């Protein structure tokens, strides 16, 4: 367990949330989770629905109380504090804007509740309206706004009281694709400009990878892996993490030799090479799952340079590239992703025998 540092924004210590009477008959939404989130971090809780990510967020916000464990915010124990006494604010999934108030009134609400002087309120409202580029709509009623605009108001409202931590509960899920992309950039910019710690909850792996400083992948009330987006993507520790984030080929193989965090593996399909080894040690000779991202595979012409070979079984085109599904003699299938560089990929057709090379350092051993 990591030690709380002076700068830790949130220190979650062996925290559980059980709905119902006890562990046996109730529902375990969060299972002894420990997590340290640093100050000024854009931290994402990523996982499928029901993994406990929203529960964790609600525990931090104070809407729910943990069954066990404790949550410390900048050194302050939050136990028993109601939401209105916690210096955190939430951007809700459905915005929850007050329909009987204008945009400006929505934003000033938190400041008014904190009994800030009127002059400060009006200047802060102006400032955050500028921050989310909504100056021109300050006097609109919230039901006259588009989804994207409502999203910005919700953000501004949560940022106005200058919380120590901003909690975002799948705030982009109701927006269309283009707007979502825009808001991703926007959120990252806001986090940089305000210096506030953001805790972002999402089930969208792409969102998690593009915005976060660090990501925690969750499942069934447990945190499976915490790391930077590239650690999570390139060095997934668990099969679930590898599967959940992006496309992945998982091939069978065995460990030949080990050297610290690296190991030499032999794929069942024939190739022998270096692979990353997760912390949970695997013994020699043991059969393991080895993950390779589809974009780490490429076609080679000479059989001598090939690591794998097989026949093309399926080709799908998705605009910026192609996915090839290749059936290997072992019966395993691998997916190869190649960029669309103007027709050259079309050289292959269904049934073609192809040779495939695996990029260096792209294999990763997975724990189950």
């Amino acid at each position, binding site marked *: 367990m990591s030690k709380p540092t002076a700068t830790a924004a949130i220190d979650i210590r062996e925290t559980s949330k059980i709905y119902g009477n006890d562990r046996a008959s109730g529902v375990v939404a969060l299972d002894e989770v420990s997590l340290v989130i640093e100050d000024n971090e854009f931290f994402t809780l990523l996982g499928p629905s029901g993994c406990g990510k929203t529960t964790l967020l609600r525990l931090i*916000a*104070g*809407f729910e109380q943990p069954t066990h464990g404790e949550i410390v915010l900048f050194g302050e124990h939050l136990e028993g504090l*109601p*939401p*209105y*006494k916690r210096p*955190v*604010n*939430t951007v*809700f999934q*459905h915005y*929850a*804007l*007050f*329909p*009987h108030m204008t945009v400006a009134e929505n934003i000033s*609400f*938190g400041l008014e*509740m*904190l009994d800030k002087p009127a002059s400060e309120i009006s200047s802060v409202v102006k400032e955050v309206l500028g921050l989310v580029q909504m100056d021109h709509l300050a006097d609109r*009623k919230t*039901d006259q706004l588009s989804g994207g605009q409502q999203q910005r108001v919700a953000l501004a*409202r*949560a940022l106005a*009281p200058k919380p120590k931590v901003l909690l975002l509960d799948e705030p982009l899920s109701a927006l269309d694709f283009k707007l979502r992309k825009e808001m991703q950039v926007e959120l990252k910019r806001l986090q940089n400009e305000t210096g506030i710690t953001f805790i972002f909850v999402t089930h969208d792996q792409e969102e998690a990878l593009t915005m976060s400083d660090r990501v925690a992948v969750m499942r069934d009330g447990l945190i499976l892996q915490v790391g930077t987006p590239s650690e999570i993507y390139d060095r997934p520790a668990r099969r679930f993490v590898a599967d959940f984030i992006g496309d992945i080929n998982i091939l069978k193989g065995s460990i030949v030799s080990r050297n610290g965090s690296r190991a030499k593996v032999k794929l069942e399909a024939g190739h022998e090479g270096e692979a990353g080894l997760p912390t949970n040690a695997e013994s020699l000779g043991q059969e393991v799952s080895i993950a390779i991202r589809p974009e780490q595979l490429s076609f080679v012409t000479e059989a001598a340079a090939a690591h794998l070979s097989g026949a093309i079984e399926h080709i799908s085109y998705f605009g910026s590239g192609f996915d090839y599904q290749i059936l290997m003699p072992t019966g395993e299938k691998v997916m190869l992703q190649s960029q669309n560089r103007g027709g050259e990929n079309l050289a292959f057709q269904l049934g073609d025998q192809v040779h495939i090379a695996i990029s260096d350092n792209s294999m990763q051993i997975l724990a189950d």
Partner: protein
Amino acid sequence: MTDQPTTPVPLSSSVVAEAKRLRNARYALLAPGILTIFCIGIMPLSIVLVYSFLEPGDFGGVSWVLSFDAYVQLMFEEDIFDGTLSFTTDYMEIFMRSVSLALFTTVACLLVGFPTAYFIATQPPARRNAWLFLITIPFWTNLLIRTYAMLLILRDQGVINLSLIETGLIDSPIPMLYTDFAVCLGLVYAYLPFMVLPIFASLEKLDFRLVEASYDLYATRFKVLKRIIIPLAKPGIAAGCILVLIPSLGAFITPALLGGGKSLMLGNLIELQFGQARNWPFGSAIALVLMVMVMLSLIFYLRFGAKKGTPAHG
């Protein structure tokens, strides 16, 4: 091209006929509504209006002579001997008493009804219906019977006084019956569901995520109630207040039984004019003045009260 001659389509005339047919159909469909409004709304009101400008008949009813006496009588007293008019506040007092008692009833209903409605609205859906059912059960009984029941509870030998004497808290019964308090209590009891139901309806629609959001934005429970819940429930509160205030103003069974006829209310006054006093025009005039007052205050509310901080969609 076909050889068949194209028949000229009388486009304009067919469109006109269609429009006419639609209009007729619309009136036909509206007919039951219009008829109902006419029969139970406009017609009786017109009769009351006409009667208020006539002279009373000798044995009730009216005699068809144009007269403004009914309205004069509201403000002036006619000397029996020389027929001179002198200003009197007798009827004004009844008006004021009725209005203040009705307002008091409305406020009491609101104070009791809002928490009740809030409680029901925050119950799990299955239990809500049971609570609503309980609220409406007294309606199954006649108002007269319910008022008599109230009388039994409040009188000197009633449940409250007897139990207080039994427990030794008081020596002699507290006089409760035949007071304004009793009238007010009776009215609150009679009209409480009219307050609870509309408020419940608007609280039920309230998105409780907004409450959560305001907690998150540092609002204490009291502030959440004041700034979020009450403003959003305002349409229900307004409807409830109107539904309680108006019948309270005109109530006559409750004041007659529980007030003991000591303090005359508008409803009793009107009833008296159509009954023993046999002065139908005066009764009509009082009823109309009451109606105009209610209408004016409603218009005033809609004009000025509703603008401030009421939800646009309310």
